[in-house]
């Protein structure tokens, strides 16, 4: 029962991340796109952990941690570029 629910949640999250990708394509400003990509990163994080646990590969969980760090650095970089006009 739980494994089926986990697969259902993973499929639902992937469909919702496509819906968020529409906002990243359409969004009028840079901040809209950054917010949409932040949401997509969080959803892919949850999908990675769900797939790692349902396929019994426990070491895949570490991939989610690295992916969360990459998404955070990307968000901070784009926000800083919007704020200052340059990086660094």
């Amino acid at each position, binding site marked *: 029962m739980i494994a089926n629910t986990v697969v259902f949640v993973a499929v639902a999250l992937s469909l919702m991340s496509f819906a968020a990708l529409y906002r990243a394509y359409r969004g009028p*400003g840079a901040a809209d796109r950054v917010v949409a990509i932040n949401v997509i990163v969080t959803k892919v994080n949850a999908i990675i*952990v769900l797939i790692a646990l349902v396929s019994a590969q426990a070491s895949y969980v570490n991939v989610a941690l690295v992916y969360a760090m990459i998404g955070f650095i990307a968000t901070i970089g784009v*926000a800083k570029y919007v704020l200052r006009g340059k990086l660094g």
Partner: protein
Amino acid sequence: MAILRILMDIIIVLLLLGGTFFFFVGTVGLLRMPDVFCRMHATTKCDTLGVGMIFFGLVLWQGVSFVSLNILVILVFIWLTNPTAAHYIAKSEYERISNEDKKEETGHGRT
């Protein structure tokens, strides 16, 4: 004992579906809200509460092990970094909008 296990399974499934519901709410807010700040208001909620409920359900499913500790580390990392990122995006967008307003005001003053 069997009843306890069934109750645990029901709690885990409810946590997973509740997290999916909050992700859905955040996605609808991201698509339908009119402004950047309104969109951020919806999506930060889906970050903290949706991921929190899904990961807590998975931790309950795995029991006490290194995998659940790893999942809790990821959860704490997301809970620390996502409000920070949202705060920084809001700050940069606010600065940009206020700078544009200031430029428009000075332009009107000259003409």
